């Protein structure tokens, strides 16, 4: 059986004293995690009282593990004193670790209190005879850096609340948990005038910064004020007047409103007075804060570029001629379709009907644009101000404006798709009639059916008509679907970038780059070379999380959902003529699920 002693590096040169820590038992053998050393002189009853206080505050089962001796000059004769100490703290196994100045190796003796075992196992030399090896306790010293292990979080995270652990936590996880939760033990530093003196990573005194303390004090009233503001804003938004049908429908379609409500929710979580309970909540809050700040900073950059050198009026002057050009190109396209496009012969009458209908539509839209042209600059000016709230707002506003300006293309697409869809369904049904079959709605399959002669006659007639009109409608549908797809791609790129800005875990990546020990994937052991004949010494370093795992674990869920149709389903929908909406917002459903 091997005994593992986790020894903090800060205590390597501590003066002699008592070891305080915790015993971890897993898989039958025990390990000891040393957290601090309490120095002589002390009164044992005070030590016991101190340990009980610390146990109550930190909820970790602390106890006195054993004694530590590093004899300085003139301190000989400690051996008997150390052995007598073990009688004052009964109950658990007692470790006696000692070290000589100038040598790097430790020696360890274990006194086992188990009355049935009644052994006093000693381990000083590794190279023993084979017969004796089976009866001895081998000791491994694992040195760890206390501050880093205390601040680190081992992944994958086990909250215990979201999913109950299926197996008992591993030894390493228990070690990390012990050190992280023993913070009250590290508050006693060497400048305290109490009865006990201890050594741990914070013995040199706790560090603080005035700026951090001032920020902490200032954040309380600021948070209270902000949460009041946000509650007023949410109350106005949820007023009855906004629940009327047209406004509600519009606000569910516009991405700016979705972004606004998502940001409001984030800010409400940030300014709530409850502190973060566990690591996941803390990271989420920190991420919301950092992403909000970065968003606003980028937005301010955009604003400073936009309002300088008259860029706004330049954009406004470009907009109306651009819209005119688009309308002219569309008209030319329709004229081309109404003639003999690509050498295909269209049905003249249907061609003229569809073409004239769409031309009139374009004429309406152009007059609307010309009506709006004096107001464009003002709209752009006030719209640009929205970038102060964040770059994501400016991008969503841009996406919404593009959607509004190309509304006519969307209308054309819907008309073309509907006509085409009707035609395809009619054709498929009449084709079945042509072959003497019928669609059975009850059984959801195709059955044979005997038709009357007049049914067959009319059906065949209609089938022929629809079939010969198919190329015309198919061509119009194809052209307008392509235009719609181009616009959707552009909107999709904007949505993806907004989503990226919202969900990228900047805080976690910053932590990974600047403080890699905070996010730990595992540990790394290194064998410390020491003198032969002493126990094995290992150095435990923290293995940081890989960047790809950081992004995967800490991505915040956003309100937009990725295209829910696969490519095959999309192509099928296009072929049949169903309307495609690949980027929809499921804002109401997403809010209900992310209730953290």
């Amino acid at each position, binding site marked *: 059986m*091997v005994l593992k002693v986790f020894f903090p590096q800060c205590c390597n040169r501590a003066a002699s004293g008592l070891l305080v820590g915790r015993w971890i038992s897993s898989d039958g053998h025990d390990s000891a995690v040393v957290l601090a050393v309490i120095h002589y002189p002390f009164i044992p009853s005070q030590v016991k009282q101190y340990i009980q206080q610390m146990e109550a505050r930190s909820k970790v089962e602390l106890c006195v593990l054993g004694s530590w001796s590093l004899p300085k000059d003139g301190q000989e004769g400690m051996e008997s004193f150390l052995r007598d100490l073990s009688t004052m703290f009964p109950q658990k196994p007692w470790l006696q670790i000692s070290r000589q100045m100038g040598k790097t190796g430790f020696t360890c003796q274990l006194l086992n209190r188990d009355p049935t075992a009644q052994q006093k196992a000693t381990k000083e030399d*590794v190279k023993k005879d084979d017969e004796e*090896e089976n009866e001895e306790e081998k000791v491994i010293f694992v040195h760890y850096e206390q501050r880093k292990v205390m601040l680190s979080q081992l992944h994958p995270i086990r909250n215990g609340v979201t999913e109950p652990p299926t*197996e008992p936590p591993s030894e390493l996880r228990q070690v990390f948990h012990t050190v992280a939760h023993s913070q009250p033990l590290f508050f006693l530093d060497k400048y305290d005038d109490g009865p006990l003196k201890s050594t741990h990573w914070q013995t040199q005194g706790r560090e603080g910064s005035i700026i951090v303390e001032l920020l902490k004090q200032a954040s309380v009233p600021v948070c209270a004020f902000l949460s009041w503001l946000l509650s007023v804003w949410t109350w106005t938004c949820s007023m009855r007047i906004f629940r009327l049908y047209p406004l509600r429908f519009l606000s569910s379609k516009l991405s700016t409103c979705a972004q606004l409500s998502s940001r409001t929710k984030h800010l409400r979580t940030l300014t709530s007075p409850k502190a973060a309970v566990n690591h996941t909540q803390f990271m989420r809050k920190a991420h919301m804060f950092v992403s909000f700040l970065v968003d606003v900073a980028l937005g301010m950059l955009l604003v400073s570029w936009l309002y300088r050198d008259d860029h706004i009026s330049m954009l406004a002057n470009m907009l109306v001629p651009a819209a005119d050009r688009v309308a002219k190109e569309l008209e030319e396209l329709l004229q081309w379709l109404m003639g003999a496009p690509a050498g295909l012969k269209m049905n003249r009458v249907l061609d003229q009907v569809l073409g004239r209908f769409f031309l009139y539509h374009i004429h309406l839209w152009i007059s609307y644009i010309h009506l709006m042209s004096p107001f464009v600059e003002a709209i752009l000016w006030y719209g640009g101000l929205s970038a102060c709230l964040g770059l994501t707002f400016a991008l969503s506003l841009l996406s919404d404006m593009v959607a509004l300006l190309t509304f006519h293309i969307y209308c054309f697409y819907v008309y073309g798709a509907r006509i085409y869809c009707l035609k395809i369904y009619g054709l498929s049904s009449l084709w079945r009639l042509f072959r003497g079959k019928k669609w059975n709605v009850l059984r959801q399959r195709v059955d044979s059916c005997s038709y009357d002669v007049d049914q067959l006659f009319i059906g065949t007639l209609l089938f022929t008509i629809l079939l010969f009109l198919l190329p015309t409608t198919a061509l119009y549908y194809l052209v307008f679907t392509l235009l719609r797809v181009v616009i959707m791609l552009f909107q999709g790129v904007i949505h993806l970038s907004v989503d990226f800005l919202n969900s990228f875990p900047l805080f976690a990546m910053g932590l990974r780059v600047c403080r890699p020990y905070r996010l730990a994937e595992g540990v*790394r*052991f290194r064998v410390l070379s020491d003198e032969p004949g002493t126990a*094995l010494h290992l150095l435990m370093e923290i293995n940081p999380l890989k960047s790809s795992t950081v992004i995967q674990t800490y991505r915040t869920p956003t309100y937009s959902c990725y295209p829910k149709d696969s490519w095959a389903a999309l192509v099928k929908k296009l072929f049949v003529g169903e309307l495609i909406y690949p980027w929809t917002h499921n804002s109401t459903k997403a809010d209900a699920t992310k209730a953290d």
Partner: protein
Amino acid sequence: MEDQDYTDISGRTISLECQNHSGFCREFTVSSPKVSIGKVMVYTCSVWLAAYTVFFFTQNTAVLSCAILVTLVGMMLHIHFVKVDHESVLIIGSVGIQVSSSYASGRETSTFIEMSRVKDIAINEAVYMHQIIYYLCILLKDPSTPDGVSRVVPLFQSSKPRLNCLVKVYKSCQEILSTC
């Protein structure tokens, strides 16, 4: 510490180093052959020759600077991400097994598997096209079934030593695993 010459499955010379830190702690390092200067020169010359040919036809100096950039960046990426210098397995009785690989640029990646998750170390056979390759692997326990294996972690994947080398490492590891 012993250093011996073995070959990998393609016939290149590799070396195995066994370090005995203590009775129950051993480290095995397999070093792959280094980057050969001849290969580097062949690749660089061919890329630059192609670049000069294109430059001869287009008379655009951007092609040459592009070729230089591509060569440099390619070499840096190769030694940082692709070329493995040595792989090592550190087995510490009743603590765990650490598998690490170090690249030619000095970057080291390592994984540590705790002993409670390790079921056994075994030599497995893999059939790859016309070859049968032996590899050493760690079998991990499955928490749900007591005798099941949840995952297989192969060792020495870049150096791919042959069976004689693997047997030596296997015997040494089993000594430690059986006692702890």
